[in-house]
């Protein structure tokens, strides 16, 4: 009825960009020879895609529903553990759970499927099933703690969710749960990204982008649906939203559960990327990192969160690494030592917060439809977003 035709062009451009990106990623894995550049680029891309997903899920909650929640790392950990536990091969259990008699769960979904469908198909489908389980576990926990926690407002909600994530981390390290979580030891040997391939076609970089792309597209669809509008109404004015018949608790719970589901999926991807998983790194510091990305990208902007995630990961793992090396362009600089990167990083963040207080994108989106209009020279109006990446 409105601007459907224009939107279709936008969608087309978006799809083409996405296809080009995916082809490039597959080439990166298989054709382009490894060198010192790709060795740095590939992990940044993988981790960036994973962080994009988690930050978008956090943005759904913090930016679009206006619930200031800091439990994201906890839900990622739940997802990561759920993924790892269900995908450790049977004969590796004795080695992984060496202090806990080989653990409680004695099967592996990817392995079981591999026996039926062949190795590569089994690994791909099995890991996707495990990723779904990871999301569902995180969502189920969110539904449980949401009942008491979502009655709280603003800062109190943040404190409660932060506390929940910390408690969960402590519980996962408890040796009483060892047969499942392996206590404070690493979980390893599960299906990692390098196992994702079709025949000899490696998909290690493609896979996280694929899963994150689908997940982000789903979140975008949700946000642009009637429910997304209800979330925004709650963010803008809770009292008015309630008076217009929007059930606050139900919609907050929905947003919380969906956000946690995708945080769980992100956690599972992170576990695949890292090849080992342990509860220790899922501290509040990780949630702050995510929050930082959301703020830098722009609260209430999906594309902002994605850009922010890639920039943050690239700076953290690559571009600012030279600051830790003790030398700069061949000269020895004594204060360029471990941790100096973090100092520079903090300064950059301060500059962003001071001068771009709305973040890189504000609450706008990269819009392929808008791009299409600009190319054709007609005036831009009311930009509809396309799944941006």
């Amino acid at each position: 009825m409105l601007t459907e035709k224009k939107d279709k062009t936008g969608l087309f451009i978006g799809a083409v960009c996405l296809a080009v990106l995916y082809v490039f990623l597959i080439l990166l894995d298989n054709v382009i020879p490894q060198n010192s550049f790709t060795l740095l680029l590939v992990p940044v891309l993988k981790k960036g895609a994973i962080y994009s997903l988690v930050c978008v899920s956090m943005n759904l909650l913090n930016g679009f529903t206006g619930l200031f929640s800091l439990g994201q790392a906890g839900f990622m950990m739940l997802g990561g553990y759920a993924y790892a536990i269900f995908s450790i091969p049977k004969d590796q259990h004795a080695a992984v759970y060496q202090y806990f008699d080989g653990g409680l769960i004695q099967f592996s979904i990817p392995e079981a499927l591999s026996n039926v469908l062949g190795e590569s198909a089994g690994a791909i489908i099995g890991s996707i099933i495990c990723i779904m389980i990871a999301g569902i576990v995180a969502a189920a926990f969110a539904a449980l703690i949401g009942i008491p926690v979502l009655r709280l407002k603003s800062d109190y909600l943040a404190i409660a969710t932060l506390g929940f994530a910390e408690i969960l981390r402590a519980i996962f390290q408890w040796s009483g749960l060892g047969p499942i979580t392996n206590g404070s030891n690493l979980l390893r040997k599960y299906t990692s990204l390098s196992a994702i391939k079709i025949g000899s076609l490696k998909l290690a970089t493609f896979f996280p982008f694929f899963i994150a792309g689908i997940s982000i597209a789903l979140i975008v669809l949700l946000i642009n649906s009637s429910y997304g509008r209800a979330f925004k109404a709650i963010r803008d004015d809770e009292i008015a939203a309630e008076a217009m018949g929007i059930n606050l608790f139900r919609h907050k719970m929905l947003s919380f559960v969906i956000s946690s589901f995708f945080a769980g999926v992100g956690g599972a991807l992170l576990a695949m990327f890292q090849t080992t998983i342990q509860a220790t790194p899922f501290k509040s510091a990780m949630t702050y990192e995510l929050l930082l990305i959301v703020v830098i990208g722009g609260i209430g902007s999906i594309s902002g969160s994605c850009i922010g995630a890639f920039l943050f990961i690239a700076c953290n793992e690559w571009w600012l690494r030279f600051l830790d090396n003790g030398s700069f362009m061949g000269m020895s600089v004594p204060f360029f030592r471990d941790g100096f990167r973090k100092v520079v990083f903090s300064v950059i963040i301060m500059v962003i917060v001071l001068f771009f207080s709305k973040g890189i994108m504000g609450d706008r989106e990269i819009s392929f439809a808008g791009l299409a209009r600009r190319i054709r020279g007609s005036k831009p109006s009311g930009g509809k977003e396309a799944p941006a990446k």
Partner: protein
Amino acid sequence: MSRPVVLSLENITMQFGGVVAINNLSMEIPEGNITALIGPNGAGKTTAFNCITGVYQPTNGIVRFMDKVIVASHPTGKDLKNYKGWNADAYAGMKIIDPTPDQITRLGIARTFQNIRLWKSMTVFENVLTAKHMRAKQNVFSATFRANAKEEKRMRDETMALLEEQGLDRFRDELATSLPYGLQRRLEIARALATDPKLLLLDEPAAGMNPQETLELSEFIKQIRDKYGLTILLIEHHMDLVMGIADYIYVIDFGSEIAQGLPAEIQSNRKVIDAYLGVSEDE
């Protein structure tokens, strides 16, 4: 009053701590009428609204809507000990019904706010469209996967029709808060209409309007009453507006009813004049 009663309040008392904000207020609002609730500042008008719409749980009393009890309450425990209102045990055995505001809206009672509460980040169109969410036949999956595109299209078409009827279609893509004040009021009413109400509660719709705008507003209120077959309850300060459009008026002061009647009766009522103009001690 031969018309069926849409909304009735029975002995509503609202006590905050030791303060009785509304004392034993009873009202009957017949179908199709414009009923006004007036009173000086702090008389408890908005509190009465909040008791009807589920924002507050009244301490005592019953609200009926279309012959169905929608709010019922009586003081218990500590509240009973401190209770200062009347009829403390009138509803003692009754089951307490304390709905949330969205449940009330779902029944068909929509409201506007004294201080305009539009959704700031949304356009005029989205503000009205979002109010349609409540009655949409969909769940989160069918909405996300666009499985029910007809429903979404119906919502959009109805919203557009509503905006056209209200003369707001020119502003459909403007941010709601960028509209002039009078139009924001009108948009808030349009948003309330989008929930398909039978009863519309207007909280000081003419607040901050000049005489010309007030005149237009009273025409507008009559229009929407006739067009959508509404029953209207309004709170107002502007006497011109109230006397011009109200079919029946309730006057409260310090939480208690001091008069009720037709506009002409209220205008000459001694108690009402005293309440509004103040009465000297030695009179």
